[in-house]
């Protein structure tokens, strides 16, 4: 049976995707020292059309990464520092009464910082759940409805939220349902000694590296083309089945896995499977393939599934982390691959 190729209108090739991705990594790497894996995962989520939650202590370059991404893509960038008194309208925008020159008054919508291509929601867990929900709804729907009027967010729309794992007092941890809306949760580790030395050298000198845009013209259109290419990557039914089993295996109510049953309270939702496949598609393109392999799924599973697992008290007391559970699931799932 032959398959007729669809008309590939304005669709970049996998090679072009790889070149763009590599260029982005290189440009951002000019100012972000280290964190190469984290940066790669952030870019994967970006091209997969998802949002990323970055967890790390202050001062390790979270904001710098996001700002550098915006600059490299030559896309609009905004930053919102979430605090306890931040209101939803402060994020989404609000209607104000405006008087025209003729004296007429009307309500005019003033877009908030949400209306941008790349948004940094810094320390999102410090705002109230109401504000968090307003942001997360926009992330999911890519639109904001205010006073009965729906406002579409610009495309591409990418949210990078950060979580500060310390100073938890007075914070509002994100509910699991809201955590689920982030494609990846990327942990930022402390830089190594060499990386710190390079950070010092790069940021304390007279010359500050300048990021050059990767796309010369219409960067947003180009990014969207690359995102469409990602969606076109072919997934075999075996891969889909593997992903589905992997996700279902994380649910303690249905799995036979003793480790999962012992330490996991709630497993991954189907969004986890979506995140796995979308992220694996990007990884496949980065590996020069137009098909997803099992190894692509394995590579992306830790950042796609860890924040979707809710561990129980036993896991906390025994020091079991979501990442270790995911690693265990990947090991178990290897036998399903063949």
């Amino acid at each position, binding site marked *: 049976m032959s398959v007729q190729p669809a008309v590939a209108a304005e669709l970049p090739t996998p090679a072009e995707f790889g070149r763009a991705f590599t260029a982005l990594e290189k440009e951002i790497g000019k100012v972000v020292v280290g964190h190469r894996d984290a940066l790669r995962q952030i870019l994967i989520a970006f091209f997969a059309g998802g949002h990323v939650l970055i967890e790390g202590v202050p001062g390790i370059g979270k904001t710098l990464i996001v700002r550098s991404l915006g600059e490299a893509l030559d896309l609009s960038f905004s930053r919102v520092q979430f605090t306890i008194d931040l209101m939803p309208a402060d994020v989404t925008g609000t209607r104000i009464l405006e008087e025209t020159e003729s004296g007429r008054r009307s309500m005019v919508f003033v877009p908030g910082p949400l209306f941008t291509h790349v948004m940094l929601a810094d320390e999102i867990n410090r705002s109230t759940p109401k504000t968090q929900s307003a942001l997360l709804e926009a992330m999911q729907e890519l639109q904001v409805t205010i006073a009965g009027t729906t406002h579409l967010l610009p495309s591409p729309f990418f949210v990078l939220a950060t979580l500060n794992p310390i100073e938890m007092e007075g914070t509002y941890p994100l509910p699991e349902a809201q955590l689920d809306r982030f494609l990846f949760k990327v942990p930022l580790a402390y830089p190594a000694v060499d990386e710190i030395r390079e950070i010092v050298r790069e940021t304390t000198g007279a010359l500050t590296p300048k990021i050059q845009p990767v796309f010369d013209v219409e960067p947003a259109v180009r990014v969207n083309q690359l995102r469409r290419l990602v969606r*076109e990557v072919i997934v075999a039914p*075996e891969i889909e089945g593997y992903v589905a089993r992997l996700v279902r295996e994380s649910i303690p109510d249905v799995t036979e896995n003793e480790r999962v049953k012992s330490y996991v309270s709630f497993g991954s939702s189907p969004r986890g499977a979506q995140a796995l496949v979308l992220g694996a598609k990007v990884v496949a393109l980065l590996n020069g393939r137009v098909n997803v*392999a099992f190894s692509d799924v394995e590579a992306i599973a830790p950042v796609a599934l860890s924040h979707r697992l809710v561990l129980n008290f036993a896991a906390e007391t025994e020091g079991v982390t979501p990442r270790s559970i995911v690693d265990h699931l990947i090991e178990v799932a290897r036998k399903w691959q063949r």
Partner: protein
Amino acid sequence: MDPLSNLDRVASRLNRLALQRALYRTVGLALLSAAALGAASFWLEPRSFRLLFSGLVLLCVGVGFFSFVRLRTAWARRIEAARWVEREADLDERLLTLVSAAESGRELRLWPELEQDNRTQLPRWENESLGIRRVPANVSLLAAGLIAAIAALLPFGEAPAPLPFGSPAVEGLLGQVEGEGPQRSGAIPQPGSGEAEGELSGEGGKGVGEGTGADGALARVQTELREQFQRSLVARTLGGGSEGEPGEPPSGIRGDLPESDRTEQPTQDGGVTPPEGMGLLVEGQDEGEKEETVRRLNPEGGEDTTASQKGGMREGEAPKSGEGKGAPSDGKGKEGEQDPNAELLVSEDATPKVGGAGGSGPGDAKATAPLLAKAPLDLSKGRGRARFSLTLGGASGSEGGEGGTAMAEPQSYIASGERGAQAEDRRIRHESVPPEYEGVIKRVFERKS
């Protein structure tokens, strides 16, 4: 080359291999089982043989069914072949995706790239690089089965041991013998007669080896019996026939031994000693007393004598006919004397004092029935432990016979027309018969009333 075409070739090769595996496994096991059965048939008891046979048949059927099921599950279509190639060549699911996409028929924008990608990967999984075996490893099972079958089933070297009685083959032979009519089952042919020779040797029109093919085992049995009969008959004096009759032994061996030679020692004048173990057992008239008498043939004396091991004429025993060339006996037995032809005349006639043909002396004959009056043996078709033995002289009584002291011959139920044949029969009935032939002998020599 097109990746999908190459995949089809790989699938066909995998299927051939799976088919070979199933075939070799099943046939090899069947051959091994047949060889084991062939070997076991020489030494296993029938019951054990049947058990082994059933077990091996079940095993073969089970393995055959398992091979069929496994062949069915292992039969590789394109997608299964793609999985196998992925395992072997580690193509990062390129081929699997290609096959899936081709079978789904969906419109794919990246189909050309996928096809091209697979084409560039093709050298990694061409036939030669995959190393698919042309012959599966379990061909050794087939070879072992063939070797075992050749070794165990083909007849070479020594002739196989006789089949155990009770086996279906022997039972079939016996049934065949029974079906050959009264001539075979009823009467013993006269030794020396043409009919007898023809039948025993298989040269006659009714030879055993003729026709059904069977029947090497029965032929061997009969051949051996014939030889034993001949030895036995030659060793003994045949008292029933007239001189010059066909089959009559030479006159020189019909005479009685002199009294001095009535011992178990071989005669000095060329008398023939019966083979070992073929001496006639004679039961004395006294309870429990048995004497084994060994007849000696005296070519000159013409007197048939019987040497008593334990000596002494049994009281009341009647002298019997059977003198070779001598005058007819008077039929009177003397107390304490022994008629040397007593046993030989036992079945001569139910009527006392009937003269033998050709000058043989008449004598009181004992009936056959009392002589066979022992309880019938249950030979269990040759598998029993009991031995087939007949004894003479078991009858007692004073009926018939002149002189009062002579033992009277009871009335025989045998028709007079069969007397001649039964006289010969009587000479062989005390043979020590090998246990494995008992069943055959009983059937062959069975008299039908």
